[in-house]
C-alpha cells in the first residue's frame, strides 16, 4: 500500500498496461515528450519509446479515427483528448463511428478503444475548458462511461477500460489530479459498472461522483452533527449504471439526492432519478432531488466560477429541506 495522487495512479495504470500488452499504445497532443498538459503521461515515452507513446498533430478527429482503425485490427489504443470539452470537435468519431462500429458490422468487428478526457470545473479555465461533459454521450448507445473519483478507482478503472472489448470514455477530473489516496502495491483492475457505497447512513442517500463526491461527504459529516445520517454512493460508472446498488441504498434510506457537477438537462442524474422512480417508486418518502450546475455556461471570474456547481452548503441545505418535508411529525 502506498499513497499516490490521482495523476500518479493514471500514469501508473498506463505504464502497467503498456508493459503488460504490446498491443496497447498511448497517443495524443503533447503527451509524449512533454508528458501531457496535465502531466498524466510523464515519463512514459522515455520508458516505452516513441512507437508506443506518440505525439500527434492537433487533429482530434484523426486521433480518434486512428484509434478506431487500429482497434479493428485488434490493437488497444488509448487516446488522450486533453480537455474533455474538445470532444465536441470529434463528436462524429465518438458517436457515429466508435459507438456503432460493432453493431453495424453485426459483431464482426469490435473496437476496444479507451478515450481519456480531462474534465471539470475549478481551474479558472472558463466556459470552453471547464465542463463536465459526460452527459453529451449518455444518449449514445454503445459507449461505456467511467468517472473515477479516487486514485484507486482511477488506476483500477483505467486498467479495466483498456482491457474492455468496448469503447470506453474515461473521464479524469482536473480538480482531483493532485488528490491523494491509497493504492495497493499490486493494484488490480476495478470492474466497470459497479457503484460504491462510500459512507453508510440511514436517513438519506446522496449519489455523487468525482468532485461532488467529496462535497457530499463533507455535507454528510456536517449533517451527522445534526443527527442526520447520510449514505453516500459514488456511481463510479455512468454507463452501465449500477442501479441495483443505488436502488438498494434508496430502499434503506427512502430519500434520494443526486448531486452532479453538470447542468441538469439531459443528464445522468436526471436519467438515474427517472429510472429509480420507475423501478423503486414505493421506496420514496420524499420527492427525489437533483442538485446540479447552474443553467449557464461556466463563467470565468473566481467567485462566479465557485458559485456555479453545487457546494457542500447547498447539499446540507437541500438535505435539511428534504427531510423536513419527509418527516413533518418530527417538526
Amino acid at each position: 500500500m502506498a499513497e499516490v495522487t490521482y495523476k500518479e495512479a493514471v500514469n501508473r495504470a498506463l505504464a502497467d498496461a503498456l508493459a503488460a500488452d504490446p498491443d496497447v499504445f498511448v497517443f495524443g497532443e503533447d503527451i509524449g515528450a512533454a508528458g501531457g498538459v496535465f502531466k498524466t503521461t510523464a515519463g512514459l515515452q522515455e520508458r516505452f519509446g516513441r512507437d508506443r507513446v506518440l505525439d500527434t498533430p492537433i487533429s482530434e478527429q484523426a486521433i480518434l479515427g486512428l484509434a478506431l482503425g487500429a482497434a479493428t485490427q485488434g490493437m488497444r489504443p488509448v487516446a488522450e483528448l486533453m480537455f474533455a470539452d474538445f470532444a465536441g470537435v470529434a463528436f462524429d468519431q465518438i458517436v457515429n463511428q466508435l459507438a456503432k462500429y460493432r453493431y453495424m458490422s453485426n459483431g464482426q468487428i469490435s473496437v476496444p478503444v479507451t478515450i481519456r478526457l480531462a474534465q471539470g470545473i475549478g481551474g479558472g479555465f472558463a466556459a470552453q475548458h471547464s465542463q463536465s461533459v459526460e452527459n453529451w454521450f449518455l444518449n449514445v448507445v454503445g459507449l461505456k462511461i467511467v468517472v473515477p473519483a479516487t486514485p484507486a478507482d482511477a488506476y483500477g478503472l483505467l486498467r479495466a477500460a483498456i482491457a474492455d472489448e468496448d469503447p470506453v470514455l474515461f473521464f479524469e477530473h482536473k480538480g482531483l489530479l493532485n488528490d491523494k489516496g491509497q493504492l495497493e502495491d499490486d493494484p488490480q483492475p476495478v470492474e466497470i459498472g459497479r457503484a460504491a457505497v462510500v459512507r453508510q447512513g440511514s436517513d438519506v442517500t446522496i449519489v455523487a461522483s468525482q468532485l461532488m463526491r467529496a462535497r457530499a461527504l463533507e455535507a454528510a459529516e456536517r449533517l451527522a452533527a445534526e443527527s442526520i445520517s447520510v449514505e453516500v454512493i459514488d456511481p463510479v460508472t455512468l454507463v452501465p449504471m449500477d442501479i441495483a446498488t443505488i436502488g438498494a441504498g434508496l430502499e434503506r434510506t427512502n430519500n434520494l439526492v443526486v448531486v452532479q457537477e453538470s447542468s441538469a438537462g439531459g443528464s445522468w442524474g436526471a436519467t438515474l432519478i427517472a429510472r429509480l422512480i420507475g423501478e423503486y417508486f414505493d421506496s420514496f418518502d420524499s420527492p427525489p432531488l437533483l442538485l446540479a450546475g447552474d443553467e449557464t455556461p461556466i463563467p470565468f471570474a473566481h467567485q462566479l466560477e465557485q458559485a456555479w456547481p453545487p457546494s457542500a452548503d447547498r447539499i446540507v441545505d437541500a438535505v435539511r429541506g428534504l427531510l423536513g418535508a419527509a418527516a413533518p411529525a418530527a417538526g
Partner: protein
Amino acid sequence: MATDERLEILRKMHELRFFENECDRLFRQGQVKGPTHLYQGQEAVSVGVCAALRPGDTMTCTYRGHGATLAMGAPLDKTFGEIFGKAGGLCGGKGGSMHLTDAGVGALGSNAIVGAHLPIANGAAFAAMRRGTGAVHACFFGDGSTNIGTFHEALNLASLWKLPVLFICENNLYGEYSPRALTTPIERLADRGISYGMNSLRIDGNEVLTVKEIVEGAAERARSGEGPTLIEAMTYRHQGHSRTDPAPYRPDGELEEWLERDPILLLEGVLESDGVGADDLTRIREEAEKAVADARDTALAWPDPELDERFDHVWAS
C-alpha cells in the same frame, strides 16, 4: 499481365455492373427499401485498386460502396442479402446498403458520414505498420469528401507517420447534386496532397489496367515504408447521386460522352486488340450476369432477421 488475369478483372467489373443494375431495378420496384447510391460507371476504380491488393490488406469505403466491397471479395449473395435486410446478409441486416462490412476479406466497413473513414483508414494502416505485417490499406472516397476536415487531418497524419495507406479519391465530378466548381476552388484535387508532402497523382479512373498498375506501385512504396499516396481517379457515375436523383443538373451530352468511355467497353477494347475473341468476351459477360442473378435469387429467399436480433452485438462484453 496474363490474359486470364485480365479476363477475371473483366468478370469482376461485369459483376459489379450487373449487381448495381439489379439493385436499381429492385429499388425502383419497391422491393428494397432505404437509400441506395449506385456505382455504375466507376467500376474500374475499385476493381483496379483491389486487384492490386494482397490477402491481408484492408479497405474502407463510402455509402457508394457496393462496388468496393464486392471488389475486395465479399460474396455476391451476402452483399445482396445485406442490401435486402436479410438475416443472411453480410451484417445480418443491421447495416444495409450504406454499411457493408466483410471483415474476413478485409472490408472494414462502408461509411455514411462523408470523410469519417479517412482517419479510420489510418488506424488500420498504423496497426499494419506497428506489427510489421506489410499490409496496406485502401481508402475510397469521393471528390466532395476532400472538402471536409477529416480529409485534411487524415492526410496530414498519414504523411507525417508514413502510414501504409492509399487514399483513392474517386472524382466523379459531382458531390451529391453539386458539380466540383460550385464547391471547390481548385480543379486538380490531387494537388491537395502536395501540401501534406504526400505522393499525389491524378489518373484515368476508367482504365482499369492503368489503375491497377499505378496502385501496385503506390502499394509497393507504402509497404516498404515510403508512406501514403493520394490517387485522384477521374471517373463518372452513370446514375444520379442516389435512387431519388434523376441528375437534371448534368449538362447535355456529358453522360453520353462518358458512356463512350465506359470502363467495361475500354477493357473489352484492349482485350480484343490483343486477340481475345468476341466469344470469350460474351461468355464472361453472360457468366457474370448469371452469377449475379443466382445470388440475387438466393438472397431474396433468405428469411428476415428475427426481431430479437436487433439487440445483438451492441456490446462485446
